[in-house]
């Protein structure tokens, strides 16, 4: 504890260069994490969304770490600065936005945390985005390529995305959202015992998370009609649009699922069917 106090005093001082910033912040990561976490907790308290339980504690830890990661990278360009107060302003800026994160009590259950974590990761990671086709609809790389109508060049990336996700991406995401092996096993057991109820609940939560994180799509890709999707597929443009939007919109994937198949009849109409493991 005395060390922490010493660090706090130092953190209040001015750092002159980006290297100094890196050095100082890397020495005091726990202090910074606590600070970002407590700010997030205060935000939830003041907006009437806080409850004293482990799920909420994990939630604020997760978001505290998210903010801190961005702060570590972007904050160094603010030098000379006072890192401690810069972090406060950075977090306050995030919380001043209308929806700083996707919060709903139902998303604090193990299933909710799992889905929220997956969809949130898909916004910043293409590997996670492509893997979402598997976790939500049970698709493999070939199905993804067919359903999104990708060309040969783009298809190669899909295989790489799947491989990286299986190798490291999924585990890292689970670590970051705090899903333990026990919780994951419980999800699998629930799915086996009550498949209908489980999938119904999963679809509800997936739609909820998708609606929030779709706002992060490039240029806010809107939902399209079948004819518009058809034009996009036939003209061969909007690869990113298709990849991003279809997996983040349960309705549009129902609308456009057969437009890019090129006669591949093996793929059925996609329905939300959670696959916990990669």
């Amino acid at each position, binding site marked *: 504890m005395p060390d922490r106090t010493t660090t706090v005093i130092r953190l209040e001082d001015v750092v002159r260069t980006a290297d100094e910033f*890196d050095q100082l912040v*890397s020495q005091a*990561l*726990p202090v910074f*994490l606590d600070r970002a976490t407590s700010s997030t907790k205060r935000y939830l308290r003041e907006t009437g969304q806080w409850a004293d339980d*482990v799920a909420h*504690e*994990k939630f604020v*830890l*997760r978001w*505290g*770490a998210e903010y*801190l*990661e*961005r702060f*570590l*990278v*972007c*904050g160094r*360009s*603010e030098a000379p600065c006072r890192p401690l107060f810069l972090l406060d302003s950075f977090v306050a*800026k995030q919380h001043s936005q209308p929806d700083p994160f996707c919060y709903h009590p139902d998303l604090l259950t193990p299933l909710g945390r799992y889905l929220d974590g997956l969809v949130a*990761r898909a*916004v*910043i*990671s*293409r*590997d*996670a985005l492509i893997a979402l086709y598997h976790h939500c609809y049970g698709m493999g790389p070939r199905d993804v390529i067919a359903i999104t109508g990708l060309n040969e060049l783009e298809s190669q*990336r899909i295989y*790489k*995305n799947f491989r*990286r*996700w299986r*190798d*490291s*991406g999924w585990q*890292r995401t689970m*670590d*970051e959202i*705090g899903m*333990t092996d026990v919780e994951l096993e419980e999800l699998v057991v629930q799915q086996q015992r009550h498949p209908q109820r489980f999938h119904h609940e999963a679809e509800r939560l997936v739609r909820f998370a998708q609606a929030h994180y779709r706002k*992060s*799509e*490039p*240029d806010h890709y809107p939902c399209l009609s079948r004819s518009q999707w058809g034009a996009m597929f036939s003209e061969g443009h909007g690869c990113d649009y298709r990849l991003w939007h279809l997996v983040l919109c349960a309705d549009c994937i129902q609308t456009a699922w057969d437009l890019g198949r090129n006669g591949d009849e093996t793929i059925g109409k996609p329905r939300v069917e959670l696959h916990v493991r990669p």
Partner: protein
Amino acid sequence: MAQDRDLEDYRACLIDGLKVRARRSACGSSDPIHVFVNEHRVGTLDGGGTETTFQIQIQTRIDTVELRSEDGVLLGGLSAPEYGFRTAHIPISGDTIQLRVHNTAQGGSATAMFTPAPSSWRRIWKTLAASAEATVRLPTVMMGPRIRVVAVAQLLLAIVVVGLAADRIAVWMAPERTPSMVTQAEAPWAASLPEVTKLERQLGELAQMQARTVDTIQLQQQGMAQLQSTITKLSSTQEKVVSNMLTVRQEMEKQQKGSGREVRQMTRLLMGKALSEQEQLEAEIHSLTVANDRLSEKMVGLEQDNEELKKKLKAAGVDVSKAVVSGHGNATTTRPPDIGQTPQSLQAADSRSNIQLQPFLFWVAFSEGTTQESIDQWLREMDGRKGVLNEGWQEVAIVQPAVPPDRFLDRIREAKIVKAVRTNR
């Protein structure tokens, strides 16, 4: 208790993740790098070894620019200023990405320029990365001296292992090894002695080679460090030059704008002043014209009065002479009237009355078809006196009007039969 431990583990896991952050990426150097502006994905930078640039301009202010690998790892970023420029160099696997952001009142623009590492550096880096079997996408800024040492040690270890393996294979494949004249019991010792000697010699050579390799690598590292520092200095100088140029350009634009505005203001001021002066001059000319007209009219009146006075004087002189002739010889005690005095006093009295009853003269052109009766009736109504008619202009004299001349003339112009009015001949 278990929950507390769970939370503590989670917290520790997050801190560990933050410590290694960018080193976690499993992406290769040829994988695209995703560019995020204000936490929205806006495009990708192709990291395929060629210099590429990504540029974006948006209507709103840019807060942050972030670079993420395909697996979502945050590789670098930049916090944008509220107004103006900011740049950052983000070294990634020896390559560099230069981020540049510019915020104005109209919005923001961001540029990300991927510059691949020089080929020699790239070779060294690839060798190190391959030997260490470490993650390829490793920011140089995060690579501490300890990691470098580990990487070099691993490289050397790999070289030793490969050398030993090659040596063993060469020994096994050598023709002198196949014919064996010793017994099974003697074989291990008899075979191993020359092998050991040879191996020792080769190990010695290998050690020398390793030492040379280490020296070379160290030299190359020093060279690269110097090169990097030079590049950094160069780029910072370049940035300074660019920012100075921009500042100068902005200042020049400001000055141009300012001077243009001043010139326009001055012109406007001068034009306004000139216009008002012109108006004043026109008004003065007009009033002078009016006054001139009046003076000329007065002169005409005075001349007429003078003529009349002369006539009266002549007539009075004749009367006086008649009276003198008729009354000559009569005892006239009365003094004859003072000839010189009478006309003078009359003239003075008349001039006074003339000043008071100075007629106002003007010339009127009547509309075509106007009868003489109408003109006479109009004159009567105005209590005016008709003068000479000259080229369609009828001279009219009236007693000084009660209203100012301009207003009076306007009223005249309003009459149906009047076509035009003027006050001078």
